[in-house]
């Protein structure tokens, strides 16, 4: 997977107390017991740690970790273009 995915896994592990072995690309945030409020908190942490701003309504608890990594990559590319 991408380095963004790896960064996201690290962030989930260190800041959201998820065990790395519980995360696969297909794992949803719901699987990790993260509700919509935790998603907003996650996006705040992504912004402060990775410098990427994702709007609050673009990611939901039903999304997979891989999908969130794609969103971050897309946003990074858009911001850079």
């Amino acid at each position: 997977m991408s380095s963004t995915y790896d960064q996201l896994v690290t962030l989930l592990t260190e800041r959201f107390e998820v065990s790395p072995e519980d995360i696969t690309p297909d794992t949803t945030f719901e699987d990790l017991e993260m509700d919509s409020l935790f998603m907003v908190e996650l996006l705040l942490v992504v912004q402060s740690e990775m410098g990427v701003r994702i709007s609050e309504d673009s990611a939901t608890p039903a999304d997979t970790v891989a999908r969130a990594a794609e969103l971050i990559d897309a946003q990074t590319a858009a911001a850079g273009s």
Partner: protein
Amino acid sequence: MSGGAVAVTGLGLVTAAGIGVQDSWKGVCGGRSTAARTPVLEGMPVDIACSVPAYDPNDLLGRRSTMKYDRFVQFALIAAIEAVADSGLDPRAWDGARVGVVLGCGMGGLRSYDEQHRRMRESGPEGVSPLLIPLMIPNMASGHLGMWFGARGPNFVTATACASGATALGSALDLLRRDVCDVVIAGGTEAGILPLVATGFARMGALSTRRLDDPERASRPFDTDRDGFVMGEGAGILVLERAEHARARGARVRAGLAGYGASADAHHATAPDPEGRGVALAVTAALADAGVAPDEVDHVNAHGTSTPLNDAAEAASIRRLLGDAPVVTSAKGVVGHTLGAAGAIEAALTVLAIEERTVPPTANLTAPDPAIEIDIVRDQPRTHHSRVAVSNSFGFGGQNAVLVFTEGA
């Protein structure tokens, strides 16, 4: 009035003396104050407090518990898990609609408020966590207990400042007598040891300042040289149950909660009525509710904050209303003043005093105030058979809550 007797069938405690009933009781009976210099209060005019020993929230409450639960909710959950286990009730099997939760809390999640306020100042509104409100609001304490145990009956938080925990137990008693619930998980919780809160109490002259270099001697209820309270934190939870319900399942009854009386001084925001009229109303109402005469009371767990005004007024009230026979103690010398949790922690200690036939000593009572003419236990725990015990709680705002516990229900 009474829809039947109410039994205490479970206890849980989180105090500066320890996490758990056993360690807390041992610490309180040891009579040694837990007050110490507190890193979180460094640089503040009063930097001493009685703090709960370090623990790992994730270990006790599961993953992300620090993100889900402010410290005051963590205390309530930890104490409630102990109390429910102690009661022998099985939350997977009970009828949740008949189980209520009533907790006292004076302040709520000020730690979260503080942290998010800092984030807003640093990063603007977009830096504020969406978790702030669910972390902060005081009623989350009872809300989370309801979720944890599947208790779907009445669920609320009472706020009468330092009487909140006792008010919660009294309100729970009403729910059981009215037969709204079979079981109520009741008590109080507080985690207010923060720079702003401690400084607020210090600025109003409520805290002890004479012994900042000797914190262990600072909280000294009823002592001549007392000069204010020392902040504490923690939670006390009691499982209250209709005695009939407890008997039917063969539960161990640790004591009875026989009466509750509440009143207001209607006098001053923070000073007690010097004539003690509000306290007299609450004590009298509690005894009448329990159906006991004043001379039947053989133990009083005093509010005993270690402030000059409270202790003098309370001692005079005890003497006038109950005589000089009751054996009196205050736990605040050991665990400090836990504000909204105090009434519940002290209620649990009152139950233990009845059960163990032991009244713990009041810490640091080396020179009892000569104006105080009641029998206060000092130095060592005293062996004493309490059949009827009163627990006093008085809050800023002039709110008074008095509970009566009995041996057996």
